[in-house]
């Protein structure tokens, strides 16, 4: 069981190796990547920012919950911060379990809770050069006073 918020590229295959073991029959890897369209707008990249100590704490709590709820210690989650280009992985969730149903459920639990609770934000960059913070309730068009 491990979670981390990092500023380097993620390595999905390494996380898959980290959770695999002879008592596990199923491994699920979730990889979230930067895609070129969101809400109909052409995206060229994303900056991820976090309230780091709280994000680390919430993410660790979610992984601990999943470990207990789905009865496997073999869970590793990493989320990346900073500037990501198209195709870059922003989050990787690796879960291994003796049985596949619990592996899928644990993986899904973690990504849903992560998106609900972990204080991380993303600012999308668009082809026209503009940037906007994205919220779960749609893009927030807050005019910046710092520009």
């Amino acid at each position, binding site marked *: 069981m491990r979670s981390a918020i990092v500023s380097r590229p993620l390595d999905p295959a390494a996380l898959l190796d980290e959770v695999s073991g002879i008592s596990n029959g199923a491994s699920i890897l979730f990889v979230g990547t930067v895609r070129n369209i969101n809400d109909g707008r052409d995206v060229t990249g994303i900056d991820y920012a976090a309230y780091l100590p709280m*994000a680390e*704490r919430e993410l660790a709590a979610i992984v601990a919950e999943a470990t207990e709820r789905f009865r496997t210690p073999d869970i590793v989650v990493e989320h990346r911060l900073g500037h990501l280009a198209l195709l870059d992985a922003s989050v990787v969730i690796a879960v291994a379990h003796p049985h596949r149903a619990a592996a899928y459920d644990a993986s899904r639990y973690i*990504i849903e809770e992560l998106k609900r609770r972990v*204080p*991380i*934000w993303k600012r999308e960059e668009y082809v026209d050069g503009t940037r906007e913070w994205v919220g779960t309730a749609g893009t*927030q068009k807050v005019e910046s*006073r710092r520009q």
Partner: protein
Amino acid sequence: MTITTLLFASYADALGIESLRLDLPEGATVDDALEQLRTMPGGERLPPAPLVAINLAYARTDSRLSAGDELAVIPPVAGG
């Protein structure tokens, strides 16, 4: 008493600041702190009931603050 207030993402952009100290009367709540933030330039852009955390844990806006607390005003999260 003095507390530290942290702003992030769109809220930090709105107020033009990421971290500030607020002086509040003893017994003040998160709502009192938010009211003070709203008097600042850009503070009117904060939503009526934003998510907040005290000392790294989500809290209600009627929670009482203590001297030295770290209050974070948290925009809708968008990780993943």
